[in-house]
Structure formats: structure tokens, C-alpha cells
């Protein structure tokens, strides 16, 4: 209603304001966004010192407050798990098992790599529109922000939503084959990122007898399987008897998630600012 009755003077003011928004404010926000995202991107690379050089290795001692069945240290180098040291106390016989990664192997944490790539894509989108660039229409800004937000949402979702795997998928994944001494056939391990935490789950299995009267129902995909979950692998049926989940907060993942949230909010606010003006012009692709 208001806009329909807006006087010519009012309109002129609005035009002026919109122009300011496009020429000044947008660049300010983009600058800010870029700074935040670069900061986030640095968290992923974590160089030893300076900007070049090999990526720093960090040790994470897994939290064992719940029970001391599983103890472990994971060494993270950027997006790769380069060393793992796992101590497992078998509940049946209190036998202590010790596994480490083979020297020649690294396990890539796909979630971290994807998140890093998404952030870099967002940064690339922003660098194309530096201060010298003149935005002419609002929809141009909206489209840019949409593209940036898409990447950021994906980056965040990669960290917040670990893959849901089935037990046979875990059993056949390369991770189980990376240890020395080799993992016994009744133990499965899985490593993933959940929010800001690096999680290690160890499943202890017990083989079901072929003539077992137990009602066999294979379980579907899940982030964390519960004891009692069943699956079939190579014509042998297993049931999960024990599940141990140990985790450790990765500080820089926490930072990155905060950066994502802040920049998503910034982007949305910019979009909202542009959209306000959209309602004043019916006939223009604002």
C-alpha cells in the first residue's frame, strides 16, 4: 500500500538508497564474507607455519570417560588420518588388543575434504566480484548470494551429517584393511566427523550359527549401529555384540562451523536487504 502511494520524492530516496546498497553495502558485506571464509579455509589447511609447507599433524586423544574398553589416539593431517593407535580391551577375556595404521597408509576423511572444497568454491565465487566490480541489479546479487550460500550449506552439511553406512559397507571399506596387525574378523571400525567431533566407532561382532533360530533381519544404513544389529558378509551372518564409540573435539572444526554459520547469516541478511527493495518495483527485475 505504502509504496503505491509513495510520492516521487520518496521514490527518489528509495532509488538513492538502493544505489548505495548495491555500490557500497554489498561490497562491504562481500569483503567481510571473504575474510571470514578465508579464515575458515585456513582452518582446513592448517600449515605448520607460514602459508607454505607441509600440513601440520595433530594428535587427538579419544575421550574414554564412558568406559575404558577402547583407548586411542588419532593423528590428523589436514583431511587425512595419517596415524591411528587403538587399544581395545576385549570384554570376554579382558585380553588387550593393540592396532596401529600401516606405515604406508593414510585414510582420507572425505567429509573434511568436501567441506574444504565447498568453502574454496564459495571463496572463488566471491573473488570474482571484488571492489572494482559494479553491481547493476539486485537479482545479480541475489544470484551470487544463492550460489555462495549453496556452497556454504553443503560445506556445513558435510560436517554435520556423516554418511549413513550399512554394516557390510563398513566391513568392506578400506579402513578395516589399514591396520597392523590386521583387525580380527570380528571387529569393525569406522571413523567419521560429526559436527566438530572426530568419532571412532568399534563394533564387536559375533558370528551367527547358520542354523541359528534367531530371526535374521539385516539392518539398513545408519551412522551408529546398535548392539543386536545383524548383517551378512560373505555368506557368514554376524550380529553386533558390543559397540564402542569414542570421540574427540577438533577445535578447528568447531571454528569452521561457527564461521559457516556466521557467513550464512550474513549472506541471508544481505539477501533480505535486497529483497526489501524488490517490493517497491513491480516491473523491474530488481
Amino acid at each position, binding site marked *: *500500500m505504502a509504496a*503505491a502511494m509513495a510520492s516521487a520524492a520518496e521514490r527518489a530516496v528509495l532509488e538513492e538508497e538502493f544505489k548505495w546498497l548495491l555500490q557500497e553495502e554489498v561490497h562491504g558485506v562481500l569483503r567481510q564474507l571473504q575474510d571470514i571464509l578465508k579464515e575458515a579455509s585456513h582452518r582446513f589447511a592448517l600449515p605448520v607455519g607460514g602459508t607454505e609447507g607441509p600440513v601440520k599433524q595433530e594428535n587427538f586423544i579419544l575421550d574414554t570417560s564412558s568406559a575404558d574398553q577402547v583407548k586411542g589416539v588419532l593423528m590428523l593431517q589436514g583431511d587425512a588420518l595419517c596415524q591411528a593407535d587403538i587399544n581395545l580391551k576385549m570384554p570376554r577375556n579382558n585380553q588387550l588388543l593393540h592396532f596401529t595404521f600401516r606405515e604406508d597408509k593414510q585414510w582420507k576423511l572425505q567429509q573434511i*575434504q568436501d567441506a574444504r572444497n565447498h568453502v574454496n568454491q564459495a571463496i572463488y565465487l566471491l573473488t570474482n566480484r571484488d571492489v*572494482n566490480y559494479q553491481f547493476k541489479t539486485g537479482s*545479480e546479487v541475489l544470484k551470487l548470494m544463492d550460489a555462495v550460500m549453496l556452497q556454504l550449506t553443503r560445506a556445513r552439511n558435510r560436517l554435520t551429517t556423516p554418511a549413513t553406512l550399512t554394516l557390510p559397507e563398513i566391513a568392506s571399506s578400506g579402513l578395516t584393511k589399514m591396520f597392523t596387525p590386521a583387525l580380527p574378523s570380528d571387529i569393525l571400525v569406522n571413523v567419521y566427523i560429526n559436527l566438530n567431533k572426530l568419532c571412532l566407532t568399534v563394533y564387536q561382532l559375533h558370528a551367527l550359527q547358520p542354523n541359528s533360530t534367531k530371526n535374521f533381519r539385516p539392518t539398513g544404513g545408519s551412522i551408529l549401529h546398535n548392539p543386536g544389529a545383524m548383517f551378512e558378509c560373505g555368506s557368514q551372518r554376524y550380529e553386533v555384540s558390543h559397540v564402542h564409540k569414542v570421540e574427540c573435539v577438533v577445535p578447528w572444526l568447531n571454528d569452521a562451523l561457527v564461521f559457516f554459520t556466521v557467513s550464512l547469516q550474513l549472506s541471508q541478511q544481505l539477501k533480505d536487504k535486497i529483497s*526489501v527493495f*524488490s517490493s517497491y518495483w*513491480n516491473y523491474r527485475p530488481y
Partner: protein
Amino acid sequence: MKTSMPAVALWGKRAPSHSITAIMITDDQQTIVTGSQEGQICLWTLSSELKISSKEILFGHTASVTCLAKARDFEKQPYVVSATENGEMCVWNVTSGQCIGNANLPYRHTAICYYHCSFRMTGDGWLLCCGQYQDVVIIDAKTLAVLHTLISFQSSDWISCMCIVHSTRIQEDSLVAVSVTGDLKVWDLSSSVTSIQERQSVYEQESKALDCTNCQAIRFCTYTERLLLVVLANCWKVYDYCDFSLLCTEFNKSGQCFAGGEVLAARRLIIWTEDGHSYIYQLLNRWAQIGNEHKKFSGHSKSIYPADGKVLKETVYPHLLCFTYVKENKSFPFVMGFMNERKEPFYKILFSGEASGRITLWHVPDVPVSTLDGSPKEIPIAAAWTLQDDFDKHHAMSEGIIDHICASEDGTESAAVTSSIYVPNLDKLVCGCEDGKIFVTLALHAAKARILEDISLLKHTLPSKVLKGHSRSVTCLLYPHGKSARFDPSWLVSGGQDSCVIWWDIFTEEILHQFTLQAGPVMNLLLSPENYRLNGHRIVCCICSDHSVALLHLQERVCLLHARKHLFPVKMIKWHLAENLLIVGCEDDSVYVWEIETGTLERHETDEMAKAILISCEESECLVTDSILPGSQDTQKHKIAGYKSSSSYKLDTLSHNLTHTEKSSDKVRPFTILPVKTKWNNISFHVLLFDLEKLVELLLSSQLSGLKSSNSFHSYDTLKRAKSTAEKKTLMLKRNKTAGSLFPMDGQVKNACEKKVHRHNSAARSLEESSGIKRHKKMKSSKKIRLQPPGKIDANITADTAKLLLSCLLPWGVDKEVDNHCVRHLDIFRLQCPVSFGLVSNGNHISLMLPGWNCNHCDVVEEHMPINLFSRKVLDLSNKYITAGQGQTGKKYGLHHNADGTQGSQIVFYLLSRVSLVNRIVTLPLEFTSAIDRTFYIFSDKSGFHFPDPGNVSLVKLISCWRDQSIKIIEVIQAALLAEVQRSMKTLKKTSVSNQPMTMIDNGNSEVQTLAKTEQTEQMVKCIKNIPFPTAVSVGKHGSCSNSANFQAVEYMPDRCVMEESESPGESPLKIVPEYQMINMTQLLSQSNKAHCNAASFLAAGMSN
């Protein structure tokens, strides 16, 4: 079996937005394919003079298109594959516009390369894909299933670009790719075909860090088979393919970003930028500049057989020859590509697509040269075109459905339609316009007035109402009665850009209440779930552009809650019944829980807790009623596209909603209007959907039982007069009861009808249900009578729809005789201008012709003659059709024996049943390979007793083979129609010479038996047998051939006699129509009833057989 549905698009003055994100030119250089951010694929015709015209727009994707690539050997099959942001993949036949296959995979592709190695591979080849995932995925081009992955041994990462290197010198096809971190990787392709088929791990042959990020393109020079071009955002480099040594680097100037490049010829490159510029370079040899003594060196390196790479190294540098640029509008990124010439008439074309929707072409000369003084020369733009250009050029074709109504109001140009809904039970179309007006009009009549010629009379009599209340454009509309019968059918709710929600009575044009929200434009209007009521009423939920949600209680005229805390756009709305909570899910995956009664924000949760809340809501009894998608203004489009296998819940519910509405509406109506809204410019257009099968069904059943509308006429009239809602409801009930009890026999017939129809659906329907549907229909048609001055317009909505469809399909302007014949004998109208055909296939793929589709023919014929011929091919096909159908010609014409106008509707019915048959054959599942199988399948599907005669078999054969030749369905239909009309014309001439008037058949049973002895009837029975009636009232499969054929004849007879009685020779067909109606309504009622009795007794006889 899923058949396709013909559709007609009624565009508006403004073209739908098409922000190009991917572009390619097909190998034959006749079609440009573009993919848009909105998710549509657009096909453009590229003439040999490099003129562009839009051809067709394909709906099917639900997200932005990321890449396009050819999906087969183009000469054999003109297939193109498209991939989207959300992992959908579709293979399209770009000649026929059909979707050949689709898949939804958890991969986001950014580039696809088609690879086929004919002597090592079986099948249709592979699609090598890369994108936002590790390494390279191999997808089967035919099934779109993931075959295998090419994996990296070292530093596995996303691949940002790749190309296939096919070299005769190396005798090995390889895939060269660069990862996002700048690692160049080479995988062997041809030698690893078997290991890929056996799913063994395939690692890269070579991996080399190029020390560069943001790689945009990599290209192999097939001329020298030596050079490798790598384009980065800030520079481009040339490498030696043998040892990957760097030969030269050229940095960009003035902050432009390089976006891609291609090798033009030996040592000649073209590089383009993100803002639409391009540069052609010649790689020069440094030695050649220095002196003669090095001549042998330069000659050496030009022919590229140097012994070692060192000679080549550091010896080339680029020289800029030519450039191209675009003057205006650099604000949107360009997607560009280059098409090299292949054989003679082909050009070297540089093409670009912009987010604004413009396509620009440059014709790159075979030998690009710089100007005489050595400075680079500009290559001029050869062509530039947008969708809007076609809409402006063919303005008659792009006229919107209600433009004529708006325009007639005042002389000014009509405002664009920004939102619209179709109300099926009233057959009304409600359109909200940019200027805030809402037009309410009769849908079918608006469509007729828009499409047909000579119907200008109708335009002025067209009843339309204008609701004035919004001050700015109307953004969304809700017809609550369509969702829940508890609402009054006269109510309409509209939301506008002025942040007002208005509750209307569409019959009285009154504003019942106006809610002012002050929350920015209203984006969407939803209704609370069926089981969520407040004081016995469902409430309206408004989503505003400031991300707030308002709950309105219409009956109490109050705003219950205005939830304003949301930081992000609302993605999901859920209702918790037990605790009276509103759960709002936002796009950042946070959840807000509002207490509806007090209006307080109870909780705000993010991450895991938010997920848990949403999941718990799903598990509890209260399910989502309505969900909107990101970019909620786009809901309609998403509806079109639908979701096949969606991973997230909200999409599931949407597709559920879609299928639900489709089911409920499609079973009843042969004709629907689907309003479609486009994303960015918020303009809607309309698609008329014709359900052929239903139409033929209804035509038949309406011919059987269509005359009862007169009876319900009166009762509906009183219904209309009744003011209060309560009164209406009771009256409605009463009317239904009487209608049900009036025609008990009729119900039986209908029941049998329904059985037949839904036999293959195995959906058993009760008698009540089916007659309810009929009643529904009656109501509509009777309403029409009330609104229209009787005698002017045909009362029968089905017949109208049928005629409208025929008008749209007929190839007008090909043969004047045919045209006149159609107008005179079929009682249908000419078209105002060519229509934009469309086709709905597989339930969720729609292809629509764009206004420029027939521009090729326009030049040939004078402008004023509307020519609706789809393509020249149709004439050819039509001739073939006639020859193929020769076997049955002799028998066929019994039907058209009487050369009178009143037979029009019968011929219309016959033609439509043929069209429906053709449509069935074309869309037949592929597993029926042999023609005989197909024939049996088609005919057995319809009725158990139709044995295909040779004519039909050859027809099926012919049409099936057309399908394999990627001929458009619409072309086949048009060809068949043309042939049938021509054929009927011939018989008409024949029979008019020796016209033998048919004996009158008053009463079925005994008469038919006596008649059956006469030759004529026998002929007729035969011919009827030949026509596949999809809806034929039959006793099922067990009926013997002759018996059921007879039975059909009986079914048909009453109708015939009705027609014959109503005819009066010498009158023009136009006048006969109303007369026919009048007779129908009054005198013949008893007669037809009798006939139905007979039919029913025959039915009983058939059953006992």
C-alpha cells in the same frame, strides 16, 4: 501403462526466465541446447544461416542444471544428457524432445564426457563424470547406472575439469583430468575397458602436481597430438603432453577471469573469459623470429616430430590474432563453448549463454588473421537471441490465456499474470495480475477464446469477474474448497505483494475480510492439515517474504499468530496436534517451535536437536500437509517436475501431494489447466492438459448418457440461488440423491463402464463413486448452460474439449479443402494462430513448444494464414499412414455414411479415438519388440475381443518404427489425423453420390437383430469392431467375438438415432448444434432411456454367455 498426454501451452507476453548455466551445440549444428538455473532445458533451432529461434522447453529437472553433454553417437541417436545440482540426470532426445531416461544419483556432476569404444565395448557407451566428489565416476549411457569409478592412488580429490585424449599416434584413449588442488591425472581408457567392466580397481597412469588451483578447462590438441592446453582462472598454460613440461604461460589482463578454451587448429588456440570475451592466439616459434639459421628448427617444431621435448620447450609464445567481445551487460557470468567445424557446410562457432538468457554466436573464420598493422582484429557477433525475442516476434502465439479479457477492459496493455489457480470443480480459472486485479473466468471458454478463430463473439460474452482489492501484484492464491469440502465453494484467498491477504467471495465479488500483515510480500498460502482444526475449521497459513509465518482464522477473521523470529526462509511447516504447536523448519536447518494459542516462541533449536524434532514430528500422528521448497515461489514448477526418488522428507511429501492431486483430478477430468510460475520474474503461464484416454472415455459415455444434464439443471439452479452455506450443503446432498435415484439403469451401465476402464488399473470402484463422478461432470455442464445464453455455445464440456483438442492438433493451412471440410463437417473452428504444443510423458516430464517453433514455415506461407503444420515431415508420414492403413479402408467408412453435419461429433469421437490409439502405440513400453506383440498388447489392453486386423497390424508396425526414428509424438498424431480426415473426406464424396439414408432405429433389441441381417449394419458392426473403444462398455474378455461386437453396436445405436433424428438437412452445422441440444434435453430423453434399458439387458445377456 503410462501414456503421454497432449498439452497446449498458453504463454504470456513475457517469456519465462531462463538463466543459462550450460550450453552446447549438437554435432549436426542444427540444435542449440541450453540448461538453466531454473532447471529447464531449452532447445533452439540453429539454421544454416546461423539464425537462432527457440524451439522447445523441456521440464523435468527440479534444480539448476550444471552440465550438458552428448550421450550417444549423435548421428545414430540425437541424445543429450543433462545433470543438475541435486544429482538428477536426464537423457533427452533433442530431435523429439522426449526424455529417454532419468536417474537420481548422489553425485553432483560438473562435467560429463561421452566415451564409446566401439570395438571393445558393447552397449551404448559410458558417461565419464566428474564433480563434487572424489575422482571420476563411470555411468552407463543407457541405464544411467553407476558402472565403476576411476580412482586416484595419490592425493585423491575432486576433479575440476577433464577431457578425453584420443590419439592415433599413441593408440590409446586416455582421460586427462585436473583436480581442484591442481594435480594432473591420466587414466587409460581403452586398455582398461575390460577391467572396468569386471570392476577391478583402475588407478591413474600418471599424476603430476601442476601447482595451480581453479583449473577451468583442459584440452588436448588433436592436430599436433602433442600440446595440452590448461586454462586457469588467472592464466592459461600450454604443456607438452609427452612429459608434461610447461611450454608457455600467458596471464590475463585487467582482472578478467578465464573460463575455458579450445584448440582451433594446430598451434592456434581460443580462450574465453567469464564475462564473455574471447581471444584467439597463434603459438609462434621463438626461433623463427631470430634468424634463418634456425629455420630447420622451426620447421621441425611446426610439424611436431621433435626428437626430444627440450627443443620444443621454451620455444613457443602466444600472439593475439583476434578477439570477440560483448558490449552490454557483463553483470552475469557467461557460459561459453566452441564448436569446431566437422564437414563442409559446418562453421566454426564460438557460442555463449548468459544468465540473462541471451545466446550469442560468433562465426570464427577458418583462418583467423590479425589486422594489417598487426593489432588484433575483432570478430563480429553473428547472432544473438533470447527467448523474449521470440515472444515479441510471434506475439500472437505468445498471448496469454486471459490477455483478451484484460485488454478489453481498457485499451491499455494487459498486465502480466503473476499467479493463478485452476478450480476444477467449477471449471474456473483464477488469475492474479501484476496490477493487483484478480480475474475469475471460465477456464475452457477462456482457452477457446484465446486459441480459436471466428469465436470473437465469445470473447465479449465470456463471463469474467474482476476482483479489485490488492494495490500491487497478486503473489499467491488459495482456493480452500479444493483442499477441503468444508469450506464454502465461493471462497478464495489471495495474497499480494502489498502484504495483504484478502478473503473473497468469487460469486459476489465481495471482499469478506482483509488481513494486513505488514511483513513484506506474501509468498505462499497453505492450509492446516485435515486433522488440525481450531473451532472446527482449518486455518490458513501465510508465509511472508520477511520469513515470518502468519496463521489466519478465516471464519473468525483473526490472525491467530504471527511468528516473526525466523532468520532464514521458511522451508517446512509442521503441526503438532496434541500440544497445539507450530513447528517451522528454516533453510539453515534450524527449527522454531511456536505455541499457537499463546503465540510464544517455545524453542529454537539447531543442528542435531532440530533434526530430532523434525523426525519426531514425522513419527507422531500429525503429518505434514503442505511443504514448500526452497524458493517457495517456485512450487508450481516443482509440481510439474515432481520427484522420483527423493531423499529428503519434504520432497517426499510434495511428490505425494502431486500424485495425490493428479490422481484425484485426472480420473475425472479430461481437461485441466496447469498454471506454471517461473522463478525469477514471477510470471506465470498456463498449460492446457488433455487426457486423451479419459476424453475418449467420456465422449463415449456422454454420448450414451450425456443427455441427463437437463434434469439436474433445475436443481443446480436452485442451489445457486441458495445463499447460506448450510442450505447449499443440504441441497447438494438432496440433488445428489435424486440424481442417483433417477437413473438406476444408467448407474448400471456406468458401473460396467468403470469396470472396463479401470480394469487394468485393478482399481475396483463402487457404483456410487463412479456415478458421483458423472454427477460432478453434469454439474459442470449444467452450470455452463446457466451462464451462457443457451443456443450459442455448446453445452457439453467434453465435446467442447474434444473439439478444442482437435482444433489444436489439426494441421491447418496445409490443404484448404481439408480445412473447409473440418470446419463444415466436424463443426470445429480454425486456430487464431499456431499453438504451442506440449506433451506430458512419464507423469513428470513436460515438453512445450516455444513461440518460435514454426518460424521456418512462416516465411513460406503468407502471414495471415495460420499454419499449424508441425513440420514438413508430417505430410510424408501422413501418406505412409494412408498406405499402411489401406487394408482396413474398405470397412472403415460405414461410419461416415451419412454426409451430414450432425455426424460431426461422431467423427470427432472417431478421430480422437484414433489419435488416442496412435498415442498408445507410440508410448508403448519398449519391451514389446515385435510388431505383433505390440499389436496384441495394445488391443488386448483395451478390450479382450479386438483381434487386430491386418490394417491395424501394419499401422502398429509403421508407427512403432517411427518412434524409433525419433519422430515427435505430435508429428505422428498430426499425420494420423491428417490421413484420417482426408480419408473421411474421400468417403464423404463417394457416399454423397449414392447416399442411402440410414433406417431409423427406435428401439434397440429386436431392431438391431433385424437390422443385423441387412448388409449395411453388418458393415457397421464390422467397422465399429475395428475402432478401438478404450471405454467400450463390454462384458470383458470372456465375451465371444461376435456377441460383444453386437453389443457394441447396440451401445452405439441409440446415440446414432438420436443424432439422426435431430438432423435437419440443409441447415448449417453451426445451427444444428444448439438444436441437437434442445432435442437432447427434451424429446429424446425417454428414448435414450429406453435404449439404455436395452443396453442393460444386453449386458445381462452378455454376462450370462
